[in-house]
């Protein structure tokens, strides 16, 4: 991050682009560029970004089937709390992340918007499952289903699946962390993970 002070403010940084495994939109690139000009602020920014990405508190907002998988993600086996994202807050005022887990209906749409508006900045949205992404199986005859939550609120990460497996949701969370960080994170596998992975038989 700190070595980017010479790059022109507009356009992508070529060096950074290959580090990303997703396309950063122009806006995100500009934000990163403007911060990259000042060394001290960049470092402070890096620290704050680290804090933001390591402590993403989702709002307890279950809509449908995917909410059960969201619960499973925070439950024993998958344990989203490992990444600091396990502190589900019941009130949107204290949350950072809205996981839209399920079908958004016409009646719910206003409430969803309200909850999003009540969340303090900076805030993020994950569209979990095909219903939240684009109506899913309810596209053709779903007179009461909003065809994608991105018609209502800006979405940061789309997590496909019907419902997505918890692993995929965790992956979506990591993509969100990458997005907050502005680049792809370096993943260090702890020793206990590799040790544990060795013990898992291929198929029971």
């Amino acid at each position, binding site marked *: 991050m700190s070595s980017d002070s010479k790059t022109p403010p507009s356009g992508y940084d070529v060096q950074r682009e290959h580090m990303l495994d997703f396309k950063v939109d122009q806006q995100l690139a500009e934000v990163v560029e403007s911060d990259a000009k000042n060394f001290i602020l960049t470092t402070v920014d890096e620290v704050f970004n680290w*804090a933001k990405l390591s402590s993403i508190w989702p709002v307890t907002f279950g809509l449908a089937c995917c909410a059960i998988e969201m619960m499973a993600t925070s439950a024993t086996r998958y344990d989203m709390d490992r990444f*600091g994202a396990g502190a589900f807050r*019941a009130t949107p*005022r204290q949350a950072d992340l809205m996981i839209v887990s399920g079908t958004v209906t016409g009646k719910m749409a206003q409430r969803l918007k309200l909850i999003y508006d009540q969340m303090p900045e900076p805030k993020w949205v994950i569209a979990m499952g095909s219903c939240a992404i684009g109506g899913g199986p309810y596209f053709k005859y779903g007179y009461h289903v909003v065809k994608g939550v991105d018609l209502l609120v800006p979405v940061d990460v789309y997590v496909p699946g019907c419902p997505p497996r918890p692993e995929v949701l965790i992956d979506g969370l990591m993509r969100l962390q990458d997005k907050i960080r502005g680049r792809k994170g370096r993943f260090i596998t702890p020793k206990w993970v590799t040790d544990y992975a060795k013990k898992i038989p291929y198929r029971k």
Partner: protein
Amino acid sequence: MGGMSDQGLHVTGAALMATLMFTVMALCAIVFTWMERKVAGFIQSRYGPMYTGRWQGWAQAVADMLKILGKEDIIPAQADKGLFVFAPILVLLGSLLAWAAIPWSPGFIAADLDLGLFYIFAVSSMVVIGILMAGWASNNKWALYGAARGAAQMVSYEIPLALATIPVILNVGSLNTQDIVIAQQGGMFNWFVFHDPFLFIAFWMYFIASIAETNRGPFDMPETESELVAGYHTEYTGMRFAFFFLAEYANLFLVAIIASVVFLGGWWAPIPGLDFAPALTLVIKGVLLVFLNMWVRWTLPRVRVDQLMHLCWKVMIPVTLLCIVGSGLWMILSGELG
């Protein structure tokens, strides 16, 4: 009886002590949030924070606090702005002031008051006002519910909390916290918790009341996440919410430290002669009690609000009163008195 220089020294010392106390408080909030999540994980057969800061997610609470610093500060349009802003400060102040009278090691105390214990209970009652203000000012029905419940609960439980310490005060004959600790010198069987059966009961009464006083499960009525969305701090965001958060964990540690001071021998080690780190001994005792508190919180379901009141007024207050009488009788019979 002191000149200007003495007073100057006094002010400097007080300022130093205050800074130290605030640091301790912030530190214990950070450590105990992390500990809470790890203990919860341990009890629930999962890991808890693992990645933030590499080793066992030790930096998790640091990240939480930093993130909360950077959050948008929202004051609802319909809220009572003055009260809304002042409430978290009052809550924090209530738990911060009480730290002054804690005796960390012989002579190491911010304010060596003759009425130390009384002072602690008096200032920590301010938390109730803060919670009530927060709930009222938020202009949110859930917050109001939480505040009303919280006020009723905390006012009620202050009584058994204070009553449970009276047998100890009877035994010591002083409200000064240092005197109380000094009276327990000489091994763990001189601690007041093992002094007589009534004091043993009084200790557990104190412990139960302290859980209720800190608004933690199974008595977390003001927050009751499954009933009132987040209780009295439903509308609070960012730093203001962090104040409540800090105060909760500071209070948690405070009541544990008071329990250690009053019942568990303060800075004295369990075995005589091991008292080389008095402050550390006290902190370890406090942390163990906090762990016990967390253990209870993550194991038991929550009681209902009327059952909570029932427990306080019909069970705990009579029992603690009985402890006072019993302990007094014990003193007369064992010949300690006069």
